[in-house]
């Protein structure tokens, strides 16, 4: 069974964010960031396992949004706070496919 594509995309985004915050953590708290190159390689390895269509959608959205994937809680897109149809969530929780917010276009990830 292939790995859940949305989870891989979420991991990819979380690593992206980690890289963005690394410099601040090093400067203000003294955490080492000597593995930056390794982490960039790890991110590239994650990308290899993501379906090309999904990754291209993510990258296209990334030009517009800092975080192209957003959580959904109580049927609300936490990117733009639009209320999503309940039926959308029923499919989104079960399915491994990609669902995007009809209002803002971000990729949705159900956390509840």
């Amino acid at each position: 069974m292939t790995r859940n594509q949305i989870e891989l995309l979420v991991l990819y985004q979380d690593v992206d964010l980690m890289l963005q915050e690394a410099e601040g953590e090093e400067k203000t708290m003294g955490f080492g960031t000597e593995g930056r190159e390794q982490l960039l390689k790890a991110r590239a390895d994650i990308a290899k396992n993501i379906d090309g269509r999904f990754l291209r959608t993510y990258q296209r959205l990334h030009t517009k949004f800092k975080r192209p994937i957003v959580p959904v809680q109580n049927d609300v897109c936490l990117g733009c706070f639009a209320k999503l149809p309940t039926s959308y969530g029923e499919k989104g929780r079960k399915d491994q496919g990609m669902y995007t917010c009809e209002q803002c276009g971000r990729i949705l990830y159900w956390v509840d």
Partner: protein
Amino acid sequence: MKTVELSKYLKPELFLPELKAGSKAAVMEALVQPLVDRGLVKGKSLVLETLSKRETLGSTGIGRGVAVPHCRTMAVSDVCIVVGISRDGVDFAASDKKPVNLFFLIVAPPVEGNALYLPILGKIVETVRDSKLRQAMINARDFAAFNKVFQGA
């Protein structure tokens, strides 16, 4: 950030005074488990993998027997802190190469309304730099004793 504010995130059910795990990976798993048991994370494997990626960037073992494994992940909806104490110490590839006894696991969502993740992380790092407080925390046998030390910081 005040220590009192931080102590709101320290909970008895997320305090592990007798960690038995003997490796870095096992410690991570033991620290994440209480969050899984209480339904505070959506995917255990996703959290563990994100934490592991954070360790790739650089060990969160900050030396003097303390590690603060942390990450932002969409697998959680709110900031969570788990405290663990290992009496024997664990090799965590810490900056001073010494075994780690005191662990603070911090996981937070990518976006938080009150932006507490970095202040919490900073406050913990600042608090454990005090050798007396650090040792008292490591010696704490239960949550009440640990929290008392922390509140007094």
